[in-house]
């Protein structure tokens, strides 16, 4: 089990989004990363791969719903539940 604070987890997710996008993440963690144009459909597999590597988790195909990765907040909710 990974032990980390909610703030640390969210900061790591923001850093991963910025690494994949090559741009700053939105200030609002609830803002859609796709509707804002920060990420496109081909960046999403990269982001999922980066999350898996960084957090040491395997995200099953059945969980690969784009809505789970639409914003930093939604990713945080999903990864938090996976790590709990």
């Amino acid at each position, binding site marked *: 089990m990974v032990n980390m604070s909610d703030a640390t987890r969210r900061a790591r997710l923001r850093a991963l989004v910025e690494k994949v996008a090559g741009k700053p993440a939105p200030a609002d963690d609830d803002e859609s990363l*796709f509707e804002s144009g920060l990420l496109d*459909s*081909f960046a*999403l*597999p990269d982001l*999922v791969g980066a999350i898996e590597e960084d957090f040491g988790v395997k995200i099953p*195909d*059945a969980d*690969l*719903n*784009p809505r789970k990765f639409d914003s930093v907040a939604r990713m945080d909710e999903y990864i938090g539940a996976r790590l709990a």
Partner: protein
Amino acid sequence: MSAYLHGFGAHVPPRVVTNAELAARLDRTPEWIEGASGIRERRWADAETSVADLAVAAAEDCLARAGVNASALGMVMVASGSGSRGFPGPAAEVAARLGLSTAPAIDVPMASAGSLFGLALAMRLADSVQASGGDILVIGAEKMSALIEASPLDANTAILFGDGAGAALVSARPHSTAGAWRLVDAAIHTDGQFREELRWSPGGALAMNGLSVILQASRKIPAAISEVLARQGVAAGEVAAFLLHQANLNLLARVAKTLGVGPEKVFTNVERYGNTSSASMLIAAAEWAAARPAPGPGPIVFAAFGAGFHWGAVLAAPD
């Protein structure tokens, strides 16, 4: 069980639809279309041309290249997701126009993965069909422009799709000493929880969740390929060519990267034809094979992913 591939055929309609033509209708630029998809142009059939017309043309091309008369067929499979009516699907008309009146003609209404599933099923059925009749002709045929034009153009889908047909001839034994591709292994899968992510019904509009499609396809295509390669003890680097569903140039490049092979190993013609759904894999195979008079060296891999989601891979090796 034994099954051999004897040849491929293809047909695309003559009308070229360029990115410039679509861009003008979509308030986009040709460069945006090519950047998003890798597609420069596609073929759209005229109003009078049907899915069956395209299928018959590809079938005749395949039979001519293989030197086989249609009377030698014991089964016809027609994969198509863009048939204009519910039933009967185009398979019955295609078989009739090939002069067949008793051979079973089976529709595979699965869209993009349809011809891959047809190839996998033909591999499993070849022995019994040979015993009762003859060879199996697998066809993928699509008139995607009819779906695109049925409602106001959607930039997310209109730029992607094209029309065409491809075909492959499968039999239980080699036809001659000239060589054939032996169908070695197949993996086909379906996960229906994603069935709403890419869908179309006659009279409706094509609906696609592009994020979901790319996310799943980018994992499932390499996974299916790796599944058959691992089962047969073949390294990805040993494969002579990957003949894949031509969905999107960016996706094909991603598959190559995931498999750890150079992009030159993945044959592409999506730049010229767009995504022709179930037809694309066999059109690609026909073009690839046309430049190679004999099978080999090295195995080849077919793979596809599409609505359902259905996906899979087939491994063939020079006999």
